[in-house]
């Protein structure tokens, strides 16, 4: 029985009304057929291609065009984009809001990306901050956080988190030695800042739907940092303990909140780290293969149990 026949049956049983049956049957038949997803993708691709071309053109022809003209054009685009966003946006709300117009989000993307182009141009040509890229990144991150919260936009929030990560990375690039260890510490600090910010803002009910973005970014950076610590043989197992704690926390969070991405992170990152620790001095190929056979089967069994108990389709 296909879905149209099933809807008819539900109507006959009185489970749904005739209007509901007609509406859902037409949806199943694609009547009307929504092109919303396709149109949004075209707009996104269009904005991205435009900014890519803009950056390429400026980087190639800046000498011929001249700084004043380049900066004027970029500033006009930037000002027009932000003027559009601020003039069309509804009053701010702490709850999730929808874009006021279909093209609103894309104008905001355009403005955000052009901001990056203009900053890069300013610093590369005029050296306004004498190469202090970290300050640009921090300013950019702060601006993007503001825009993301003002206009309820996940894309700009992701840009903000990336900029902040860049700021953490660039700040420590001034350190002359022990870069790996220092990077790791800053990565952990970044996770702490991002995770805590997300949690606090969620508790304050300020755009609580952003929490998942914060946590996914923080979890991945945290696992990469801890894993790189595990792989660093100079450490004495502290990172390994950290990895186990992170895996436990991720697993518990994933199961409690039915966020199975965190279960997957715990399983894969944890397996990689534990396998490295157990096999790093192993030379016997048979032993290594035996290890993989049994542990992979054990992981499958454990995950099946988790799936049976918690992991219903989303």
């Amino acid at each position, binding site marked *: 029985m*296909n879905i149209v026949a099933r809807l008819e049956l539900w109507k006959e049983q009185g489970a749904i009304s005739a209007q509901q049956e007609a509406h859902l049957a037409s949806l199943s038949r694609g009547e009307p057929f929504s092109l919303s997803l396709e*149109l949004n993708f075209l707009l996104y691709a269009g904005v991205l*291609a435009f900014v890519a071309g803009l*950056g390429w*053109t400026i980087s190639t022809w800046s000498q011929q065009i001249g700084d004043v003209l380049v900066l004027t054009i970029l500033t006009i685009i930037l000002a027009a984009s932000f003027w559009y966003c601020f003039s069309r946006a509804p009053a701010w709300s702490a709850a999730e809001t929808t874009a006021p117009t279909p093209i609103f989000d894309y104008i905001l993307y355009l403005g955000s990306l052009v901001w990056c182009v203009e900053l890069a141009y300013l610093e590369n040509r005029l050296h306004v901050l004498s190469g202090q890229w970290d300050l640009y990144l921090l300013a950019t991150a702060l601006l993007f956080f503001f825009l993301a919260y003002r206009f309820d936009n996940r*894309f700009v929030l992701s840009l903000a988190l990336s900029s902040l990560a*860049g700021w953490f990375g660039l700040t420590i690039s001034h350190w002359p030695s022990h870069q790996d260890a220092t990077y790791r510490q800053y990565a952990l600090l970044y996770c702490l800042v991002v995770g805590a910010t997300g949690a606090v803002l969620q508790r304050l009910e300020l755009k609580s739907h952003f929490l998942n973005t914060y946590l996914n970014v923080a979890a991945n950076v945290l696992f990469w940092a801890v894993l790189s610590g595990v792989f660093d043989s100079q450490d004495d197992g502290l990172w390994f303990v950290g990895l186990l704690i992170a895996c436990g926390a991720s697993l518990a969070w994933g199961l409690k909140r039915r966020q199975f991405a965190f279960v997957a992170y715990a399983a894969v990152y944890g397996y990689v780290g534990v396998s490295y620790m157990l096999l790093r001095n192993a030379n016997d190929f*048979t032993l290594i*293969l035996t290890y993989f056979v049994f542990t992979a089967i054990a992981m*499958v069994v454990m995950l099946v149990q988790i799936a049976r108990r918690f992991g219903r389709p989303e």
Partner: protein
Amino acid sequence: MRIYTESSEETLRARKLLKEWTGDGALTQEQYQSLEPGTASNLRTTNIFLRLVLFFFTVVAVAAAAGLFFTVFLSRPSQQTSGIFLLLFAAVSYAVAEIAVAKGRLYRYGIEEALAVCSVAFLCVGLGALFTADAPPSLREIQLVVSAAGTMASLWIWYRFNLWYAFPAAMIFAIFLPGCWTASDSAQHVVIAVLYAAGLICIASIRSCHRFDYLEDAYSLSEAFLWLGIYLTFNLKISEFSLLSLWSPTRFTSEPASPFYWTTWVLIWCLPPLILTRGIRRKDRFVLAVGAITAVLTLVTNKPYLGWQRHTWDPMLLGVALTGVALSLRRWLARGPGGVRHGFTAAHLSGKDKHAMSVGSAVLGLVTPQSITPPPQATNPEHRFGGGGSGGGGADF
């Protein structure tokens, strides 16, 4: 012939739609509670994350088990022995996949999928090893056997288990088939296109019997892949970088003067409107997407095809064109009665679309950090403006 019964698949589909419609507000929570028991299935399903992780660990276990078998029981085996045992592994993997579904009632669970995929991999590697053992080894014969077996096995897995990704895998295996029959690059392109076109005719005739049922999406996706395959085969500027070119002993060199070259140029302009028309007439999302992708690819590769110089502002023009098309189409549709024209609307109809866009936008923001993160060497005050390689987002100056 299919491993899952039609009623099981339809029940699962009804369950999924029921949840989606309730989420969209088309059904009340009470209606959902009363209808949900009627969509209970005896198949075991899970969510995408656990499915991916189970797939990963099953592949690790199977690959390690095969490696362990060779290490423990066969010391320095001949090619022929390795080939035979790999074929045995293929058979065992496939049998276990069947048992996992028959006894374990697994449906898109990762485990049975990984076993089926491993069986195809073992089959191809095993056949390759078996035929390499024959003296003198002929590369073309091995290529023919392996690619034919890979194509058939992938198609079988696609049909039997209804796994969408087995279909493009079969198409990729098919790319290597014509290399055994002809050394001519042009002929190879034509043969691949003919194979895909034959597949397209079969799929198009079969899918008309599956309007609105659970197989509609599967056939739609396969048709979209075939259209994309045909287009990519004919677009010589793209296929120069494809598997066909890498595998071919004589690298394809596009000769601007040859009739074949200009025929393909005509075809890459004819195919996108054809695909878009087909997608619009059938209201097929996947075919429409391929139509749009091929249209963009035609615009991007047209200048290299004609030997014209590319300009730095070409992406800007493309961006303006894409945005213009999207805005005009949206406005035109919105002006129709009830925001609908010819059965199409620009409005959101499903919460699934919104969810996809919100997840997509968050991911896209994260995967494009280069667009906002300047390279560390920019801290050098002597760094000169210019020489941006990618132009992505404009920060790579």
